[in-house]
């Protein structure tokens, strides 16, 4: 007779091998067809080839310039290497770093499959990222800090040290995923280090920093670091067996959503997920609304959200120095950073508008027209974008090598236009994948993602004075500021009059 009920759990049995289970899954999938179609492989190869052809030579000269850095610049190089290391850990923290695919998370994690075998491939991926990033940082450092020409042993010393440090940083990120104490320290200290590094680089433009001698890395020292990295890797692998499930779920689902967003070309998945996660972690206490300001209900809502984000929004203002930091590169880089930064600052409280645009049921309950809702919800973004762009242009005018002029005032006048761009993007909703494909010599491509990406960019024509002054660069007089202020006002009024529904609760 066929048995339909399993006996109770067998306690003394061995754990199943993750490798065996994975092999079984791979074999079943292979029977249903190849994982990568020829078309996908072609697109992948073409993307890599085009990317290498476009940025390869410039990236090569940036990583390995013709000459070493002068003694006066070496301190800044060391600071930037430190910032790169801090950035690597933050990036790994954002990605988990130990994550499982959705299938393994659902079907293998809650089973008696050996945890070490299950997590080992994920750990190997994390260590590989650490090794590559460490080697890149080390070669960049040696190209600028070592004696030219760089000898084989000197380069080997740098590379060994770089890979060892990369592995140690990756292991620290794994430890921070497991232990909340490490995570708290990493999330507080590393962004602060990045801010200090940025401030140091800007300070170096107005005051000379101490000169540093040529840096050599003794091979024994590098080997000792490598030995430490290997020893800690062994300990981490041993401890994988006890890695708690609860620390795997959230990062795995987050990375899964990133992949969904990339696969479906739908970035709004990520924005939604990040917003929900952010608020779910917060313990809120209801605050009373002010009855006298009933007509400004959405403004009260935005101010409440801004108040709750509190010092977290402060980090955003620390990034106002970015356009100045990037002013030594291409002319368009500080301009692009200014626009993206101001639009990001404006977006801090635009979650409500994004939700109203996606599903206006609450707006109907509130009984507000689209025009009224957008006009009121524009107030806080306009203030934030104005403050951010004013600060960014002040820094850029002082430290960005621009001709003299009231740059800060131009930034202030540009703010409302940036807020308009942010509002347009918040209203854009999801990508329209129903548009007909465009045929090109390299194959057909869907225009929806490109149109989504360009959403709001038409508003940039109202920012012409700011963009022209920066790209010139031309010294802007107060006349430029006046024209920019008038154009910003025109952008806002035109949008409120023609761009939103004036009768229905619809944005």
């Amino acid at each position, binding site marked *: 007779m066929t048995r339909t009920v399993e006996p109770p759990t067998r306690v003394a049995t061995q754990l199943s091998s993750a490798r065996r289970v994975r092999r079984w899954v791979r074999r079943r999938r292979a029977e249903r067809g190849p994982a990568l179609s020829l078309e996908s492989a072609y697109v992948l190869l073409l993307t890599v080839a085009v990317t290498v052809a476009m940025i390869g030579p410039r990236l090569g000269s940036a990583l390995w310039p013709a000459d070493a850095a002068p003694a006066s610049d070496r301190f800044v190089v060391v600071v930037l290497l430190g910032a790169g290391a801090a950035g690597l850990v933050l990036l790994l923290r954002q990605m988990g770093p130990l994550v499982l695919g959705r299938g393994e998370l659902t079907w293998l994690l809650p089973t008696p499959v050996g945890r070490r075998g299950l997590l080992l491939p994920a750990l190997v991926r994390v260590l590989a990222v650490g090794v590559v990033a460490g080697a890149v940082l080390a070669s960049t450092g040696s190209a600028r800090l070592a004696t030219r020409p760089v000898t084989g042993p000197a380069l080997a010393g740098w590379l060994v040290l770089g890979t060892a440090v990369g592995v140690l940083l990756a292991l620290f990120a794994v430890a921070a995923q497991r232990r909340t104490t490490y995570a708290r320290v990493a999330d507080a200290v590393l962004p602060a280090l990045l801010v200090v590094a940025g401030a140091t680089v800007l300070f170096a433009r107005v005051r000379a920093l101490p000169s540093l001698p040529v840096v050599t890395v003794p091979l024994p020292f590098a080997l000792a670091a490598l030995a430490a990295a290997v020893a800690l890797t062994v300990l981490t692998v041993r401890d994988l067996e006890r890695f708690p499930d609860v620390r795997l779920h959230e990062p795995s689902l987050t990375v899964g959503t990133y992949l969904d967003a990339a696969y479906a070309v739908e970035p709004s998945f990520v924005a939604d997920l990040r917003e929900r996660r952010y608020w779910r972690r917060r313990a809120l206490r209801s605050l009373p609304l002010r009855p006298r300001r009933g007509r400004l209900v959405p403004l009260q809502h935005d101010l*409440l959200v801004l108040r709750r984000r509190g010092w977290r929004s402060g980090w955003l203002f620390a990034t106002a120095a970015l356009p100045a930091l990037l002013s030594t590169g291409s002319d368009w880089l500080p301009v692009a950073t200014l626009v993206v930064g101001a639009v990001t600052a404006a977006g801090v409280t635009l979650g409500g508008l994004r939700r109203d645009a996606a599903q206006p049921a609450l707006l109907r309950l509130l009984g507000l027209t689209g025009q009224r809702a957008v006009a009121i919800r524009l107030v806080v973004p306009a203030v934030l974008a104005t403050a951010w762009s004013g600060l960014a242009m002040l820094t850029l005018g002082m430290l960005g090598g621009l001709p003299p002029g009231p740059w800060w005032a131009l930034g202030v006048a540009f703010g409302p236009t940036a807020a308009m761009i942010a509002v347009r993007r918040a209203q854009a909703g999801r990508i329209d994948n129903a548009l007909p494909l465009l045929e090109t010599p390299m194959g057909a491509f869907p225009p929806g993602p490109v149109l989504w990406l360009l959403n709001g960019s038409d508003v940039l024509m109202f920012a012409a004075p700011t963009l022209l002054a920066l790209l010139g660069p031309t010294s802007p007089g107060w006349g430029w500021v006046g024209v920019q202020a008038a154009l910003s006002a025109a952008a806002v009024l035109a949008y409120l009059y023609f761009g939103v529904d004036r009768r229905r609760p619809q944005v």
Partner: protein
Amino acid sequence: MDEPVVTVVGLRVAYGSVTVVRDVGFDLPPGGALCLVGENGAGKSTVLRCVTGLVEPSAGRVRVFGAAPDGTASFWRRVVTTVEQPSWYAGLTVREHVELVRLAGGDDPTDGRVDELLDVLGLNDLGDSTPDRLSSGERQRLLLATALARPAELLVLDEPEQRLDSAIRPVVAGLLDEHRAIGGSVLLASHDPVFVAALDCPVIRLHSGAPMPDDPGRPRPDVSA
């Protein structure tokens, strides 16, 4: 006699070749209530969506307060509906959502009505929580609290008893009675015979999109034809 709050005549809704609502007609007087019942897919929600202007009828006539439902802000100041699950605002608590709606409706959010609703619907202890953290039944109670937190002449509710505990269903029926007692009207769809009986109102039984023949709310002649 007062003009009906809602008049539906010869309503027909088709999606492509499939007709989901046919020959539905009724009048809802001021202060009255009317309940649509029927199995899943009978067309109850589609009728409610037509009344709120969220779906355009393929044929027939729908009038709300004597005019076609136009979805303007002034229409939504008189009508409240729960036919769509809202996307709750991130960063606002349960209590703040209810207060926000009450304030937007022109009332004082601190006048005690919000407390009363949260208390009656068993949401008092969840006031500082966020809607994302609520269970589906608790979210349904929050939706009802927001719907009842502001003045409305017409409530259009899609299965308000759905996902609610049996203990809370009579409470909701009582709140709807209160709404009618002060002159408001209620049009709803429901699956629960006990809940419908508690409301003590006329019923239209839909089957495959059409009213059952023995129903008091049987179709009226299609005057638009």
